[in-house]
């Protein structure tokens, strides 16, 4: 206790009152503590004393989700957006982003990261274009390309492991087309041409 406290009349009075209490009975303290320990609830028992949670039926959840979707759909034009209404996206298609392909970190070791590569093909008359190559097992369904709003440009972004890759485009689900922007190499096994892409480590 400091001198400051002893000089404070209120504190001094409290100290005097506490000193008048009888000394603690150790046996009584032990009995009280033991009784408390014996009466303590286990976690499992504790559930019984919790107030019951209101039960949420599955149809309530679906109903709420449907209501939220309807409200969102109706109000979609009422919410202000930062995007200008007259943005010309004719030559800037949103490119397809393909999932991790072959020759990726999974197949080449964790020390090699994937490098996103954009593939672009100009073809105004195509109905569909996909990029195929050794990075997606030449699967025409793996990486469909997105068409720009003016219909001239097809593009896709594919994360690719660094190294040398061969690829091409499948136009209208049937025509294999080389990339005019890339160099071409002949496959010695089959004697056919493919486009070549070299990806450097970042």
């Amino acid at each position: 206790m400091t001198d400051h406290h002893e000089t404070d009349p209120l504190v001094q009075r409290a100290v005097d009152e506490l000193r008048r209490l009888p000394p603690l009975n150790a046996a009584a303290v032990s009995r009280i503590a033991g009784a408390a320990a014996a009466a303590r609830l286990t976690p499992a028992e504790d559930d019984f004393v919790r107030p019951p949670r209101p039960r949420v039926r599955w149809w309530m959840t679906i109903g709420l989700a449907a209501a939220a979707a309807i409200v969102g759909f109706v109000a979609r034009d009422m919410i202000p957006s930062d995007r200008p209404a007259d943005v010309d996206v004719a030559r800037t298609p949103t490119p397809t982003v393909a999932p991790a392909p072959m020759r990726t970190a999974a197949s080449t070791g964790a020390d090699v990261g994937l490098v996103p590569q954009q593939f672009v093909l100009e073809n105004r008359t195509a109905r569909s274009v996909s990029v195929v190559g050794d990075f997606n097992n030449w699967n025409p369904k793996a990486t469909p390309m997105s068409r720009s709003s003016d219909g001239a440009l097809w593009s896709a972004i594919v994360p690719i492991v660094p190294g040398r890759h061969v690829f091409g485009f499948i136009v209208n689900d049937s025509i294999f087309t080389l990339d005019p922007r890339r160099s071409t190499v002949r496959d010695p096994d089959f004697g056919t041409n493919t486009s070549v892409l070299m990806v450097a480590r970042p």
Partner: protein
Amino acid sequence: MITRAATAVALVASLARVASAQDTLLLPGDRDASAELARIVSAARDAGLPVDPILGKVSYGVVVVHAPPQRIVAAARALAARLEIARDALAPRPTPGDIATGADALEFGATKAELRAVRTASGDQPVSTPLGVLAQLVASGVNAKRAAQIVTDLIKRHASTAQLVALGADVNADVASGAQATAALDTRLRGLTAVLAPPGGVALDAPGISATTPKKKP
């Protein structure tokens, strides 16, 4: 086309899953070729080789080339052999990507010794990019021995992977424009070596040279 492609993708997927079964129909209309393909993939996997490049070659043969089954089998077998040579040349710890790109370089005429030289020059670094450039130079018509020598020299001079890739792409583009491969390489190489360290100056694997622990004077 799309049906055929979907069939090809499905067969390659099944090839990967059930290669050990060896009798599953993998190539439409040719059970023997399918069984042979399954054996090739299974053997490659058992040998610790990456099988993705083989499956990719099969898909390419079916989807793009529409090659006959026996030709696809032959290409898969040849690729499996190249993968094994590349794996041995790039020992002790090549990544599957290193092995696949090494097999590409072998396909265009590089040798096992040239792959090993690139591996040695690269130290512990992944070699898929340098080997890809080697493959590209050889595919462009550069002599394989000279291409390997140049790639190895550039690695020792600490050329970045971007610089290596640019060299391969530039030479390839020059050749596509009508230039001779050797002349294109010399021209592009002159521009690149001007900005790199002198030969041997920082080569960490050169005898008696270390970048971090210089020799003590007597």
